[in-house]
């Protein structure tokens, strides 16, 4: 069963579009900052930039504080959306003993339980069962909260995902599967690793309601997440198939593995979610170039100083 095609572009009541842009900008600037740090050798850890996928983070703004998110390693935006700060991230990236993970875990799997940000796993697919288990406890408590499990489309190949989805479906858990469907698994295009691009057909039989989402449109992401959350709370586990594109490399520790992507990359650049949101705010949001420039400067500044203080803290040792 697929969702009725709801409005996807109107401003959601109670949501401030400028906050959509702020979140996406923060993510974009943070990822670029981390790539620079790696290039300069200022950090040893690797990052998995979500350039081009920042709009997916807006899902967090449609969630309740009690909702839990199990991110993928490319989900910086939703992790920021749930309230983790750039400084927290930098401390994890540095691996400071004072960081929440104490320097033990990679920063892209960092858990901030107080914020509802749960650990991912280095084993692709491994966090689908843990997310389903968390959703089971919400179900047992009738807590009125949901668990959002974010996965890349390459996770479709992992048996753990299917085992978890089958159980979540049979038990009607308050579970939302959000797929960062960027069409690639490192160097492999989707058609090398599965029979069809869309993930929905694989998930529906498990008893999930599904909805195709324009993953580069923050409004669609917001509305779809709100819909999925309501469905999941009503005993219908939901799946959001977010089509998007990785505008950057796979990771900060090696180069672009995809070949022959020039054209599609160019096409997707025209759908850059940050540009889209800036454009929207100028045309319909009553914002100004100056205001947007100020916002960008503000976020850039915040990230730079977050790095400084994380760095200072580490150097004090």
């Amino acid at each position, binding site marked *: 069963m697929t969702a009725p095609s709801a409005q996807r572009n109107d401003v959601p009541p109670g949501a401030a579009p400028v906050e959509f842009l702020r979140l996406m900008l923060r993510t974009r600037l943070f990822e670029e900052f981390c790539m620079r740090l790696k290039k300069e050798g200022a950090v040893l850890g690797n990052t998995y930039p979500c350039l081009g996928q920042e709009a997916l983070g807006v899902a967090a703004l449609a969630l309740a504080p009690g909702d839990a998110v199990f991110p993928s390693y490319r989900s910086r935006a939703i992790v920021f959306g749930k309230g983790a700060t750039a400084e927290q991230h930098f401390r994890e990236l540095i691996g400071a003993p004072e960081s929440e993970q104490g320097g033990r875990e990679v920063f892209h799997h960092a858990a901030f339980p107080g914020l509802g940000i749960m650990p991912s796993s280095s084993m692709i697919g491994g966090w*689908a069962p843990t997310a389903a288990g968390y959703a089971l406890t919400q179900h047992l408590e009738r807590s009125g909260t949901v668990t959002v499990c974010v996965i890349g489309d390459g996770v479709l190949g992992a048996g753990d995902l299917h085992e978890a989805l089958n159980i979540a479906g049979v038990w009607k858990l308050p579970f939302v599967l959000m797929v960062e469907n960027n069409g690639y698994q490192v160097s492999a295009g989707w058609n090398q690793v599965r029979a069809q691009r869309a993930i929905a057909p694989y998930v529906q039989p498990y008893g999930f309601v599904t909805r195709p989402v324009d993953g580069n449109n923050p409004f669609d992401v917001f509305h779809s997440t709100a819909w999925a959350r309501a469905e999941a709370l009503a005993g219908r586990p939901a799946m959001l198939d977010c089509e998007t594109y990785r505008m950057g490399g796979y990771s900060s520790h090696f180069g672009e593995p995809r070949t022959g992507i020039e054209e599609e990359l160019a096409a997707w650049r025209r759908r850059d979610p940050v540009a889209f949101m800036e454009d929207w705010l100028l045309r319909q949001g009553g914002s100004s170039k100056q205001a947007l420039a100020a916002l960008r400067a503000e976020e850039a500044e915040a990230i730079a100083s977050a790095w400084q203080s994380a760095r200072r803290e580490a150097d004090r040792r």
Partner: protein
Amino acid sequence: MSAAETFTYKEAIARALREAMAANPKAFVLGQDVGKFSIGGVTKGLIDEFGAARVRDCPISESAMIGMGAGAAMNGYTAVIELAYADIAAVAFSSIVHSAAKLHYATNGQLRCPLVIRSPINRFSRHGPMGTDVTLSWFMNVPDLDIAMPASPGEAYWLLRHAFTRPVPTLFLEDRSLNPLSGPCGPRPDPPGRARTVRKGSDATAIAAGRMAVLAEKAAERLARSERPADLRVVSLGAVKPLDRGSILEAARATGRVLIVQEEPPLGGYGPAIQSLLDELPMGALKRQPRLLARPDTFLPYNREENVLPSVDSIVAAARELLA
């Protein structure tokens, strides 16, 4: 529970599970056929007492079941996963080692993972090389994973109760062939997980866990009653991890001779780990090198697995050699 009261091994496990679930409303059971039809019998009645929400029959998805247990732990719950038999832990290995055992460490203690994985050893059930093995050694060197291998109703009861209190998961290797064993549960051991001296003795010490500890005790009795009587101390580990280094070293020093008995091949498991530990003793602390009696480096056959496993006879023979 009066100290006198006796239980079978299986009853002791069932009782510990029941009491733990009664004490902790956030404890629940996952498994196949653990509900109305309790296939192993251990969960019998739990669904009536605690309801279908807390006693959940599952698809054949052990990796997800154990991963879900780890996820539930992130919200303060304790899952008890019953595997059809110990060999099946293989399909959930990643969930056990990566998702569950590493949770407390990787989150720097932000999250605890008191997960209980009931892995019944199916030996002598004629299920062949993939359905009757012990599987302890797969996990012996995994940090932050407790391993229990009870040899008596008391060990089974207290080690299972203890598992619910831990910040890390417990692999609970109960042995179906011991189900009929009967005895009292006795008082809570202090500290919990301490190795148990099941038989005093001064000539040598036999160290083992689970069924091998039971056989070692029989062997000790036979040695005591033989023409050339020998006095074999028997230490039952119960908790294989964390390993009770103190009790092991003490027994080794006291008797100067150590025989370790395990059902798995000799290249892993508690046997070599204990030999490694004993090498920390000062030169001359032992009268003889420790001896490991293990099955040969081979799998268990469908037919006649007893032929490759240690027996009372082979334990007696190994002890004799050690005492010679």
